[in-house]
C-alpha cells in the first residue's frame, strides 16, 4: 500500500447518532485542518480503502495530511518541518526584563525579586546584541520585544530608552517593529498606557487578575500585604475608556486568570463583572492553570488536575459565548516552534545582563545553574554557551532522549511537547488541550455553524 492514515488525527464520535447521514469531525494536527466527514468515508480511511475514495477526495486528504505516504516516519518528518519552520520565522524576538523588582508578593511566583534595575551598560549591550542578531539573520522582517519582569513598569526609563533605540534600528533597516508587555497592571495608568501604546508600539498588555476581588486580593497582594484589585481594575476601566484605545488593535488588554482549586468557582462571576463594566468588547480573557513555577509547588499543592481544568475550560468558553464575548477560533494551530527555546533568534535579557533561552529562568533560584544560562551581556561572547539544555529540544526528541511519550501523541504537531523545561525537569504535564480537544472541535463547529447563544 502506497498510503496510510496519518496517526496525527483526532476524530470525534458521530455528532448525531439518530441522523441518516452520520457525520464526525476529523482534525489533522499535521495541517491544522478540521473537517466534517461522513462516517462511511471515515470507515474507509480506517481500513485503508483509499482507492474507494476517488482521486479527487484522495488528493484532498493528502493535501490536508490526513493520508500520508506509507513509508514516511511521520514523527521525524514533523520534527524536520519544525526546524525549517523555526528558521522561517524571519523575526528577531527579545524578551527584556528591565528590572528584578516587583511590588507584588504572589504566593505562587517562582521569582526572587530585588531592587536591581537595568544599567546603561546592559542596555547598550542589548542593542549591540540586537544588531548582531540582525546581521546574523539577514532575512529578518520583524523585530519584536516582550517587556517582562519582575514588574517591567518599575524599569520604565530603560523601556523608553531601549524602545526608542530599537525602533530606530528597525526603521534604519526597513524592518517592522512590535512589542507586548506582561505587567501586573498596578502602575499602568492611562497616560503610561497611551505613551507605550501609541509611541512604543506595545499592542498587547497582559494583566493577571485572579478572578474576583475576594480571591485576587488574597494572592496578588503587595509585599506589604496590601490589596491591589481595585487599583488595577480602575486602571483597566480608565484605559478602556480612552478614545484611542482600539486605534491600533481590537483588544490591547488581555486579562489572564490563574485558576486553581481555591478560585475556579468564581471564574463565571468575574466574567459577569467584566460584562457589567461594559468591557466585553474591549478586553480578551484567558484561563491558565496554576503550575509549579520555580521552586514553588503551588500546582501540586492546590492546582486542578489537567482533566478538571480541561472540563472547566469548555464550560467557561461556552459561558463567555453566552455573554456575548467575541471568540472566533479556539482550536490549536499547527505549531512549528514549541516556544522561544528552540529559536536561536529569540533570547531573554534580564537586568543583570544574563541571557537565557526561556523567560521562566531569570531571577529564579531553580534555574541558576550554568546549563540554563547562555551567558552575560557584560562578558565576552566567547564565554557564551549556545548549547543550553532546552535549545536542543527537537534534537533530543528526534533521538528519543527526552519525552518518549510525545512521539506517540496524536497532538504533537500542535503542541510540540508543551513546555520543554518541564520535561527536562522530569515534570511530565501535557497541556489541557489533550484532555478537551474533542469538545473543542464540537464547540468550534457549533460556533461556526450556528448562533451558539441560542442553543444554550
Amino acid at each position, binding site marked *: 500500500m502506497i498510503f496510510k492514515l496519518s496517526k496525527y488525527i483526532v476524530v*470525534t*464520535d458521530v*455528532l*448525531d447518532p*439518530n*441522523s*441518516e*447521514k452520520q457525520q464526525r*469531525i476529523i482534525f489533522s494536527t499535521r*495541517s*491544522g*485542518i*478540521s*473537517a*466534517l*466527514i*461522513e462516517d*462511511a*468515508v471515515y470507515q474507509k480511511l480506517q481500513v485503508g480503502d483509499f482507492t474507494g475514495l*476517488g482521486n*479527487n*477526495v484522495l*488528493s*484532498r*486528504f*493528502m*493535501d*490536508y*495530511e490526513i*493520508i*500520508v*505516504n506509507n513509508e514516511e516516519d511521520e514523527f521525524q518528518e514533523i520534527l524536520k*518541518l519544525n526546524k*525549517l519552520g523555526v528558521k*522561517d520565522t524571519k523575526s528577531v524576538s527579545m524578551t527584556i526584563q528591565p528590572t528584578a523588582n516587583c511590588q507584588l508578593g504572589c504566593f505562587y511566583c517562582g521569582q526572587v525579586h530585588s531592587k536591581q534595575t537595568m544599567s546603561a551598560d546592559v542596555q547598550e549591550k542589548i542593542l549591540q546584541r540586537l544588531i548582531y542578531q540582525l546581521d546574523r539573520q539577514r532575512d529578518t522582517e520583524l523585530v519584536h520585544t516582550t517587556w517582562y519582569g519582575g514588574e517591567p513598569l518599575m524599569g520604565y526609563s530603560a523601556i523608553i530608552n531601549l524602545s526608542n533605540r530599537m525602533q530606530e534600528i528597525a526603521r534604519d533597516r526597513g524592518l517592522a517593529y512590535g512589542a507586548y508587555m506582561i505587567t501586573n497592571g498596578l502602575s499602568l495608568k492611562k497616560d503610561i498606557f497611551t505613551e507605550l501604546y501609541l509611541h512604543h508600539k506595545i499592542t498587547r498588555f497582559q494583566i493577571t487578575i485572579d478572578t474576583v476581588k475576594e480571591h485576587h486580593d488574597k494572592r496578588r497582594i503587595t509585599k506589604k500585604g496590601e490589596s491591589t484589585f481595585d487599583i488595577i481594575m480602575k486602571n483597566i476601566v480608565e484605559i478602556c475608556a480612552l478614545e484611542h484605545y482600539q486605534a491600533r488593535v481590537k483588544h490591547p488588554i488581555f486579562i489572564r486568570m490563574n485558576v486553581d482549586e481555591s478560585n475556579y468557582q468564581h471564574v463565571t462571576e468575574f466574567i459577569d463583572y467584566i460584562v457589567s463594566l461594559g468591557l466585553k468588547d474591549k478586553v480578551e480573557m484567558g484561563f491558565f492553570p496554576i503550575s509549579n513555577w520555580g521552586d514553588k509547588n503551588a500546582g501540586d499543592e492546590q492546582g486542578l488536575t489537567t482533566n478538571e481544568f*480541561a*472540563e472547566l475550560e*469548555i*464550560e467557561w468558553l*461556552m459561558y463567555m459565548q453566552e455573554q456575548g464575548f467575541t471568540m472566533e*477560533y479556539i*482550536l490549536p*494551530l*499547527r*505549531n*512549528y516552534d514549541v516556544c522561544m527555546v528552540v529559536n536561536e533568534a529569540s533570547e531573554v535579557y534580564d537586568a543583570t545582563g544574563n541571557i537565557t533561552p526561556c523567560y521562566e529562568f531569570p531571577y529564579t533560584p531553580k534555574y541558576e545553574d550554568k546549563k540554563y544560562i547562555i551567558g552575560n551581556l557584560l562578558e565576552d561572547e566567547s564565554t557564551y554557551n549556545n548549547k543550553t539544555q532546552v535549545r536542543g529540544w527537537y534534537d533530543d526528541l528526534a533521538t528519543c532522549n527526552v519525552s518518549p511519550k510525545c512521539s506517540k501523541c496524536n497532538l504533537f504537531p500542535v503542541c510540540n511537547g508543551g513546555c520543554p523545561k518541564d520535561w527536562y525537569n522530569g515534570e511530565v504535564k501535557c497541556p489541557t488541550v489533550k484532555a*478537551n480537544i*474533542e*469538545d473543542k472541535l*464540537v*464547540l*468550534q*463547529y*457549533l460556533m*461556526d*455553524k*450556528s448562533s*451558539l447563544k441560542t*442553543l*444554550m
Partner: protein
Amino acid sequence: MKSKRLKMALQKFSEARIEGGLEDGFEVMNLDEASSTRGGNLAGCTCNNGSNYTTKPPDCTCNNGSNYA
C-alpha cells in the same frame, strides 16, 4: 464528548438543522485559519503529494521536489 452542556447544545443544533449530505463526503471548516500557519494559503497553493511548502505563496515551492497542483 465530556461536557453535558455542549452535548445538549449539539443535540439542539442537530434537531433544528436541515440535513444535507457533504460533497465528496467531506467538508473543510477552517481553511483560512489552518493556512495561516502553514506557509500561506492552502487553497491557492497546493502541493500534490501531501508535502509542505518551502516558500510561501505566490511562489509556492513544494519540498521534496514535488509540484503543486
